[in-house]
């Protein structure tokens, strides 16, 4: 919540004027806002809202991996535990737990708990680097999965919880496709701007500097571990909020929601989308959700998972920066940017494959 409030402030103080807004950005915003008006409920809800939710979870990973250099496989665990907390503190139809707290208490409590869990995961893993961070967060994800699967008193084991409903507010039932889409869009858009802002803030620049050279930053007097833990806290906040949407979207939560395969899906979404800009995870999520839903219509039903795998393989093979990198590579050829503003600067950056957001940290 707090991060979102800072957004308005950030746009003005972060050196962006309205006239700076790219027409593409405006078109994208209009497109996203108008999306439910020309699509079916299915596209609004299951493609649109679900992509936004997955994209938001992947965005939390992008914040850690792209700016912090820390690849965490436990972001879905944060979202999953938050989803569980909504079912445990609020209402469910299973008859286990369900303390019946009102939504305005359940939701903030669950999100805060999720963010703290994120920070805790960070505290455990920040002293490791690279592959060891992946391993330790993978271990946390696996342990959490088996814990919720085998705990029957709190988490109701394999079955998990069903019948988790969003509240009816202002006469609107928030599970209906269109309201739920806009709710997801608000959350996703808010965090997108927040992450874009954080990347330009003092903290974000510090984080990126730590990613590039932790020893130098330590020598300069920065508390490297604290920076990283705070990044985990912020990422936890994002993932936890998406977790609330996830449980409202499915109406249920079970260990499979936060299983290892699902965690790897989040990594795939972030990597295929691109880790260099906050838009990447959302591109990845849209691609993932479309493929997941429609690959079975494209090809023989026994082979469609092969198609999904092949597409992701091709993207990573031809563009190490994911869909985002692919776009950056195609763009000059299409000559879309013939009269773009900072011509010289942008050209060199594009050649180096660096998007605008990473520019400040390296310069």
């Amino acid at each position, binding site marked *: 919540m707090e991060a979102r409030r800072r957004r308005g402030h950030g746009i003005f103080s972060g050196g962006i004027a309205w006239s700076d807004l790219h027409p593409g950005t405006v078109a994208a915003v209009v497109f996203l806002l108008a999306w439910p008006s020309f699509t079916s409920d*299915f596209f609004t809800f299951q493609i649109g809202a679900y992509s936004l939710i997955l994209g938001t979870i992947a965005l939390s990973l992008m914040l850690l991996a792209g700016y912090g250099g820390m690849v965490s496989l436990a972001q879905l665990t944060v979202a999953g535990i938050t989803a569980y907390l909504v079912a445990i503190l609020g209402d469910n139809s299973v008859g286990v737990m369900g303390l019946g707290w009102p939504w305005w208490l359940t939701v903030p409590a669950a999100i805060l708990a999720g963010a703290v869990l994120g920070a805790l995961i960070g505290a455990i893993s920040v002293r490791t680097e690279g592959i060891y961070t992946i391993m330790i967060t993978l271990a946390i994800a696996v342990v959490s999965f088996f814990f919720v699967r085998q705990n029957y008193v709190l988490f109701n084991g394999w079955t998990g919880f069903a019948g988790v409903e969003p509240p009816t507010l202002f006469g609107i039932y928030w599970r209906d496709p269109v309201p739920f889409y806009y709710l997801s869009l608000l959350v996703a858009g808010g965090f997108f701007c927040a992450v874009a802002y954080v990347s330009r803030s003092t903290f974000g620049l510090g984080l990126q500097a730590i990613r590039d050279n932790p020893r130098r930053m330590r020598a300069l007097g920065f508390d490297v571990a604290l920076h990283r833990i705070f990044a985990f806290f912020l990422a936890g906040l994002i993932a936890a909020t998406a977790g609330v949407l996830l449980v409202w979207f499915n109406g*249920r939560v079970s260990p499979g929601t936060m299983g290892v395969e699902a965690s790897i899906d989040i990594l795939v979404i972030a990597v295929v989308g691109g880790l260099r800009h906050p838009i990447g995870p959302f591109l990845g999520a849209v691609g993932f959700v479309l493929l997941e839903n429609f690959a079975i219509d494209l090809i023989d039903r026994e082979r469609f998972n092969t198609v999904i795998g092949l597409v992701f393989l091709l993207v990573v093979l031809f563009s190490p920066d994911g869909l985002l990198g692919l776009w950056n590579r195609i763009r000059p050829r299409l000559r879309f940017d013939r009269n773009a503003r900072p011509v010289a600067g942008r050209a060199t950056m594009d050649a180096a494959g660096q998007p605008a957001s990473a520019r400040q940290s390296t310069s």
Partner: protein
Amino acid sequence: MYRTRKTLFTAAALLAGSTGLAGIAQAEDTIKMGALATLEGAFAALGEDSMRGVTMALEEVDYMAGGKKIELVTGSSDASPDSAIRATRKLVEQDGVQVMVGPLSGSEGLAVKDYAKTQPDVTFVNGTSAAQDTTLRDPAPNFFRFSTDGAQWMAGLGEYAYNVKGYRSVAVLAEDYSFPYTQVFGFLEPFCRLGGKAPADARFWVPIGNKDYSSVIAALPDDVDAIYVALGGADAINFLTQYEQAGGELPLVAGSITVDQSVLGSKGRTRDFVIGTPSAGPISDTWDDPRWDAFVAAYQKRFPDGFPSPTLFSHGYYINTKALLLGIEAVGGDLSDGGAALRAALSALEFETPTGMVTLDPRRNAVADIFLTEVIVGPEGNLVNKTLEVIPAVSQTFGLAYEKFLEYGQVSRENPPCE
């Protein structure tokens, strides 16, 4: 530059819009039918066989029922309720199916039943999901199950293990979700009523897709007479292989999908070890009956690369698809009333299946014959289930009154206690 980009966006918007609308527009003379099975994950091989059953039922009538052409749309899940709901939602809300067959596994069935209540105009017919509460408690008025549930499938096995095999205490190994709960309940209830024991600390519950059974095998107690195993697909094969390699010697009593053709038909070294294992279920490979023989022959002819003999998955999906087609035929293909007439026709439907007559109870769950079987070496050297006994017209409440049966309580890890 602006124009190019705007064109791009318009094109993308149009594309998305047209695909979104495609689901709604359909010709008057076709009926869209969805089929949902687990084509991913640990039960993928079972899901494939399910689709063979659907194909057989449709090809029998040449994709025509009640004068309408039947258009099949397939959905896939990975046996988790979440994925089943996503796939169902896509079939119903995007592809616009008016009738749907599926899902395959227990907890998916519970989730689809709940979803069915939100789509009163769509008629849902079960695949092979066999959790008890899909139809027993709080059923959906538009969800039908012409296949039986997991407790019905166990009819006669508890008595057989106690009386004929002489087992007095068993260990239990099963997957940890609603279908095995239902099977364990169906087996233990008569077994324990006769005086058998299955202590709580000798019950092992593993997740679907578990690959390493060494810790379970090490923890199996020595002082039991047999192990009751209710695992399916790859899980059953993994356990049986590992138990044999570990030198396990306890005899087995098997759940319906633990020693069926999806396991027996697989290649591996479990063969000799499972011979003589008693089981029970909705089919028996060697039932000597012209209806079953015709079904097996048709399956083998159509799917030379399928299992040696149809599994209960192709059988269950076949029966449910066939029931749906008979219902559509009965109403002359007229679903214009939101399927109300179709559902009335289905409720009253009685028909011959490869395994005998099937009727429905008031909660739209099948009453059908169940087969008590034993694994033997078949005439062609492959393992098959020999029919020991046919238990006629098994109902979901084991012949008890509905209210009386509810007193047994919901199936769970501890029901029945059996201490």
